[in-house]
């Protein structure tokens, strides 16, 4: 026919006429099949682990929250369906609402302090000389690297009522009489210690991330604003802050999620026996399930926790999907 026919068309016509051997045709289709299944094969191991250890427990959690699940049921491996009785029981429990309020207030205070102080130190890093900046970032990384359980033990020693360095310093500074002051006798001062511990441990991550983001802000924008006569605070509010908004959304939602489920700091600091004044939602759920063996009630509290966290997660996901170049 035509000499100008593209190669593909020629091949197709040959194939149609049945000249290509059958074996070669099979190889073509097998390769296409391989292309289609390869990503699923690659994903399967990771997806299986995540599915078994995250998705199934999540389903089990919701299921258990509608069941009576005590020691007897634990041995039988079978819960007894009780409908919404667990939820009715916790919603009518004034202790539960106190715990919710305490957790929310504690989370708000910790997250605000972490974000404000972390950002302030990041801005400070821009102002200081090079050697101070290197010293400060090295120090921050050191603090960042300290395992939580180690940090709890250090702080426990620092606020020890007898030999703690905190009581000595505060007494020397004449802030009050802190000789043999027991920080955990009063939940307010106890939670002040926990706030200090958590904010101290969280600042390095926030500062280093915000600083890394600040370094990416184009210099010309800041200089142009300065030439236009904007004051430093105005430049920060009008130029830097909007540019950093994505990173702030991510960091704030991560901080909310971490602080909301605070458990180990309080648990280890108070020798695994916190009084009910120190219950946060995670500790309350843990206490209900592992200490008094009401796993169903614990699960219901945990479901409420997950729902609370879901709001923060939505913000985080939206921002990650927007900035994480997901197509």
């Amino acid at each position, binding site marked *: 026919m035509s000499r100008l026919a593209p190669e593909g068309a020629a091949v197709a016509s040959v194939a149609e006429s049945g000249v290509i051997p059958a074996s070669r045709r099979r190889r073509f289709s097998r390769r296409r099949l391989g*292309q*289609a299944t*390869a*990503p699923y094969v*690659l*994903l399967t*191991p990771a997806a299986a*682990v*995540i599915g078994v250890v*995250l*998705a*199934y*427990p*999540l389903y*089990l*959690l919701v299921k*258990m929250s509608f069941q009576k699940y005590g020691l007897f049921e*634990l041995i039988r*491996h079978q819960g007894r369906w009780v409908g919404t009785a667990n939820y009715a029981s916790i919603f009518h429990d004034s202790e539960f609402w106190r715990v919710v309020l305490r957790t929310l207030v504690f989370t708000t205070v910790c997250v605000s302090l972490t974000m404000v102080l972390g950002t302030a130190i990041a801005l*400070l890093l821009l102002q*200081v000389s090079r050697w101070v900046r290197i*010293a*400060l970032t090295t120090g921050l*990384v*050191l*603090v*960042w*690297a300290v*395992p939580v*359980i*180690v940090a*709890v*033990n*250090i702080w426990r*020693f*620092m606020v*020890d009522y007898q*030999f703690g*360095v905190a009581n*000595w310093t505060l007494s020397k500074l004449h802030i009050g009489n802190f000789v043999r002051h027991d920080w955990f006798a009063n939940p307010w001062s106890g939670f002040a210690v926990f706030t200090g511990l958590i904010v101290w441990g969280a*600042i390095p991550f926030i500062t280093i991330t915000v600083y*890394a*983001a600040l370094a*990416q*802000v184009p210099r010309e*924008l800041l200089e142009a604003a300065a030439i236009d006569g904007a004051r430093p605070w105005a430049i920060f509010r009008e130029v830097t802050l909007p540019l*950093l908004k*994505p*990173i702030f959304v*991510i960091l704030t939602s991560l901080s909310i999620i971490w602080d909301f*489920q605070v458990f180990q700091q309080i648990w280890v600091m108070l020798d695994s026996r916190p009084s009910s004044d120190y219950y946060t939602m*995670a500790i309350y*759920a843990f206490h209900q399930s*592992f200490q008094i063996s009401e*796993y169903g009630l614990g699960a219901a509290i*945990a479901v409420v926790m*997950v729902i609370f*966290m879901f709001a923060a997660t939505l913000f985080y996901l939206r921002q990650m999907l927007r*900035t*994480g170049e997901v197509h």
Partner: protein
Amino acid sequence: MSSVTQIAPTPVAPAATRPRARKRLRKAGWNVLGLLVLAVMIFPVFWMISTAFKPGRDILSYTPQWIPLHPVLSNFTDAIHQQFFWNAVKNSVIVTSVVVVLSLVLAFLAALALAKFSFYGRKPFIVVILGVQMVPLAALIIPLYIMMSRVHQVDKLSGVIVMYLTFVLPFAVWTLRGFLLGVPKELEESAMVDGATRFGAFVRILLPLLGPGLVATAIFAFIQAWNEFIIAYVFLHTPEKQTLMVWLASFTTLRGTDWGPLMAGATLCSLPVIIFFVLVQRKIAFGLTAGAVKG
């Protein structure tokens, strides 16, 4: 001339050097503030190390001894000879190394699928990967315990390893995917044009370029597995099976509060993490922010 000097309000310094001097003064002020912040932040770590080297009578004094004037190593030997220390070290090393190796392999395969193929269900999987990082561990511990007791994995290192793997994988997949996306397609293709097989192109071109990503992921997995407490605490009952963090948390209940050995033990437990953290911190911070600011 004289009238000019009278008009100037403060005729101390020549006009040209005054702003520079003020600028230098301001810089010095910021530096002092920066050093103050450093001192406050670093103090707990300093206090731990300093206490670890102090003899008991210096620790138990009402006026703090800032620097160990009579440094001793007895706290460290006490900590090492504490019951179950070597068991805990062994368990931590086993758990951590298995988690690191398995998470690298599984995450790499998954990241390959997400970065190099487009397929049905890719975006939902990414949403799941990002979403599961947000599920509170404290809430999952109850059903995990029920599930693990059904399959007889309570009080076993293998059960703990599987759980750690799950909590490391999402981040690992996400990080490696980012690194894989950063490798230009043309590099791989040109290697294959030059006659390399797909596998050969992978080993010679892709793997070296992914080195930093693999290292960052490995160290992240290491730190997570080494530092984790809640799962190990709930699932490992027998003292011989506990990891270092559980050992450290139960330190005081064994012999009363013995601050010197406790701080020495804490120093020993944090040493590996501190070393690895210093190696990798820039990558983690920059990995999170890359592409977050668009000028």
